[in-house]
């Protein structure tokens, strides 16, 4: 790797020192200068130099390189959550941009290291993706590209069926099953009342035993499998689907990578907000020369610009962090403040607490986007930032502003963020109707899933499970079971529990 150009290297040292001075804590950051094609290629691979062979990286590349070639959009920077952190700078960027990007990257690096949601991610992911590539290439050699690729496609169709919270759930240790069984179980069959001497005739021993056995078996069958709905569908498939060894391994590769990338989806607003907050502070306080101000202002405002109908995570994030800092500096929180009804007093509220900085550092450590919005989005903030909810007006066929009510905005935002804005899907039964079929359950919360997508996804899932698969959901207020047996799809109303 060639060393950074002299002036860039000098700027890097300066910015790193500044960042540490502000209290950011991060693993070493390695910057590399790349041209746009390389940048597109790296971005298509999700920031990694090597990924397993698959067409979707190519698709990503086509879109990125084309939109750049056509001048539609451009990627400024790319940073990878590893230790050391790798960040890519664009050779064609101006020096001002390069400084901005470096400052921004240190913000990300700090977030990667300190945010709790990133704590389970593998910091040696560079090696890991390369290993995955090697493994999958080996399977391609052994089983043929078409077969392996088709299987990967099927897996990718359900790659989001994971449970990003699972690394943090401490489950009670497995109940000691053996002991339980040793305790003499209560008899299930009731004896008929009888006189002693008649007992062997009224309650023949053989019959009692046979009946006992039958009831026990039935109970065993009725026992749910899995015992409670399982959100990590991929893990369930790895453990229980009738797969060949290579298939199991491919599935586990996909699952592992999905878990690695999950926190980035969970903290998009915070992560970008945090990085933008720091680049703007470092640039405007120290780094800019007079000549660079205009260019910086232009590009910074481009990054955090808002468009009607779209919420910019950079903008929302940076403003929320600034708002939190301000509120905790001035003590604008808590009961006394909330209940204050004097407009002027409330506007000029300032207890000179100076807790803002501590607070934002703490926030960046423990929150994800959902809890971040839930905890810190205030009515004043919504009003100041001119947030609104919009929705489709069926009569005009357009998206229109619907409301500026705080509660609605917050609910809409949280809905879009919870579970990545995707439906909650669980494995509810791995032995459906005692036929070894797989039944998934959509936890319905008022929003229907997209029917055609669900049908196609089920098809792909049935390829992995090998037996018919079901999805229980709700369409038009009717509980519905979608079934796919690999070939045909059918839909039926759920009437009674099977």
């Amino acid at each position, binding site marked *: 790797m060639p060393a950074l150009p002299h002036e860039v290297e000098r700027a890097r040292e300066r910015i790193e020192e500044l960042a540490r001075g502000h209290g950011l804590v991060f693993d070493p950051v390695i910057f590399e200068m790349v041209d746009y094609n390389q940048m597109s290629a790296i971005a298509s691979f999700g920031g990694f130099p090597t990924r397993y062979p698959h*067409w979707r990286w190519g698709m990503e590349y086509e879109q990125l390189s*084309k939109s750049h070639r056509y001048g539609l959009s451009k990627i400024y920077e790319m940073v990878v959550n590893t230790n050391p952190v790798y960040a890519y700078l664009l050779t064609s960027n101006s020096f001002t941009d390069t400084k901005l990007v470096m400052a921004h990257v240190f913000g990300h690096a700090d977030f990667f290291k300190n945010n709790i949601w990133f704590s389970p991610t593998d910091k040696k992911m560079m090696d890991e993706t390369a290993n995955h590539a090697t493994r999958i290439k080996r399977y391609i050699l052994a089983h043929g590209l078409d077969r392996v690729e088709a299987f990967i496609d099927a897996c990718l169709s359900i790659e989001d069926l994971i449970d990003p919270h699972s690394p943090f759930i401490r489950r009670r240790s497995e109940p000691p099953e053996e002991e339980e069984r040793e305790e003499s179980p209560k008899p299930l069959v009731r004896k008929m009342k009888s006189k002693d001497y008649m007992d062997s005739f009224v309650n023949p021993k053989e019959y009692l035993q046979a009946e006992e056995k039958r009831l026990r078996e039935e109970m065993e069958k009725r026992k749910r499998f899995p015992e409670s709905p399982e959100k990590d569908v991929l893990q369930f498939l790895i453990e229980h689907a009738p797969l060949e060894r290579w298939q199991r391994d491919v599935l586990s590769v996909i699952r592992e990578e999905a878990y690695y990338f999950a926190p980035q989806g969970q903290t*998009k607003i915070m992560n970008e907000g945090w990085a933008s907050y720091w680049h703007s502070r470092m640039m405007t306080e120290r780094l800019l020369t007079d000549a660079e101000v205009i260019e910086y202002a232009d590009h910074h405002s481009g990054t955090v610009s808002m468009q009607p109908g779209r919420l910019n995570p950079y903008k929302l994030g940076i403003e929320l962090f600034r708002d939190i800092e301000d509120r905790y500096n001035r003590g604008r929180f808590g009961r006394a403040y909330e209940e204050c009804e004097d407009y002027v007093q409330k506007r000029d509220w300032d207890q000179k607490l100076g807790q803002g900085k501590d607070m934002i550092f703490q926030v960046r450590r423990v929150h994800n986007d959902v809890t971040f919005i839930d905890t810190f989005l205030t009515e004043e903030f919504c009003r100041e930032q001119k947030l609104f909810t919009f929705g489709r007006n069926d009569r005009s066929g357009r998206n*229109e*502003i619907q409301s500026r009510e705080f509660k609605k905005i917050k609910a809409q935002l949280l809905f*879009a963020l919870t579970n990545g804005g995707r439906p909650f899907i669980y494995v509810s039964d791995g032995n459906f109707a005692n036929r070894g079929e797989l039944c998934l359950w959509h936890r319905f919360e008022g929003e229907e899933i997209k029917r055609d*997508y669900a049908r196609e996804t089920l098809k792909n899932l049935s390829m992995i499970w090998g037996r018919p698969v079901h999805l229980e959901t709700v369409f038009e207020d009717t509980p519905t079971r979608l079934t796919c047996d690999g070939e045909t799809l059918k839909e039926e109303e759920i009437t009674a529990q099977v």
Partner: protein
Amino acid sequence: MILKIERDYGRFRHIVRGTIKRDLTRYITRGELIGKQGEKLVSIPVHSIDLPHFRFGDNRGGVGQGEGANGTPVDGDGDSGQSKAGDQPGAHILEVEVSLEELAQMLGEELELPNIQPRGKRSVVSRRDKYRSVRRTGPESLRHFKRTYRKALRRQIASGTYDPSKPRIIPIREDRIYRSWTETEEPQANAAVIYMMDVSGSMGDEQKEIVRIEAFWIDTWLKSQYKRVETRYIVHDAAAREVDAHTFYHLRESGGTKISSAYDLCRRMVEDDYSPEEWNLYPFHFSDGDNWGGGDTEICVEILKEALLPVVNQFSYGQVESPYGSGQFIKDLEEHFHDNEPLVTSKIDGKEGIVDSIKTFLGKGR
């Protein structure tokens, strides 16, 4: 440098082109790159393969930011902006404007359109000077500063007179490089596009929208191919008349359909204003294919055969699917004409069909 991505990129291209048979065709969508053209947002088609996931339906609404009272339309795609919150941290995306010329180029690349070869006798050649090369002598006003500087720098480094701590570059006579021109011949071809549209009752708003989008792209492409493009509009139901562009797209009539009336007007237009020696002619006709019985189709065929096809570059007929069913006219045309005649027909079933139909119309390079 060959990038590793080439492997996957090649694979992807093969899959969408269908050269590798994979059971993915049903997921192939025409993705869009959104660009801005003046006030308008335009989308450039790119292929993408959309693997199915369990997800919520569209039109869920979202949260936005900005001015406006309730009921103000917001542009955007109903995307709350976070749905792409995915695996790519820190990818700053900027939207920029594209010029019409660039748009045409993208369209050409995406659809692999051939450049049009204007018919020889119709093109007047003009000469132009273009500054696209360099030479060692010339007037100072044409000095190429960058090249001169580079050459001087190279010479000074080679001769050891360059001092990095005092980087002073002094060009001498031999370093100087000047811009120079070459004479190019450019055909000065003109084209006339005549749009005809059926505005009878059976053409609804959606059909007109399709015609509008299609005409926009056809205009864009032809304008990139010709120096000067004139556009005329004809609407017809049972009778035809010439209108301006706005009326063309917004007029709604009821009544019967006599296609021959439009073709007849088109013929007169060509005879009066566009002599085939000077003009490349592109009549386009859009209709839902329902024509009045009673022998009108025969008259159309006759006008085409006798008057139009011999003089035009290409006559294009697009039949737009309408809720009233689409008619017979496209089949009639196909029966009467052979492939080698400059007549192209295309059936457009809904908005998804637009791109393919543009390719059919413009893919011949005529």
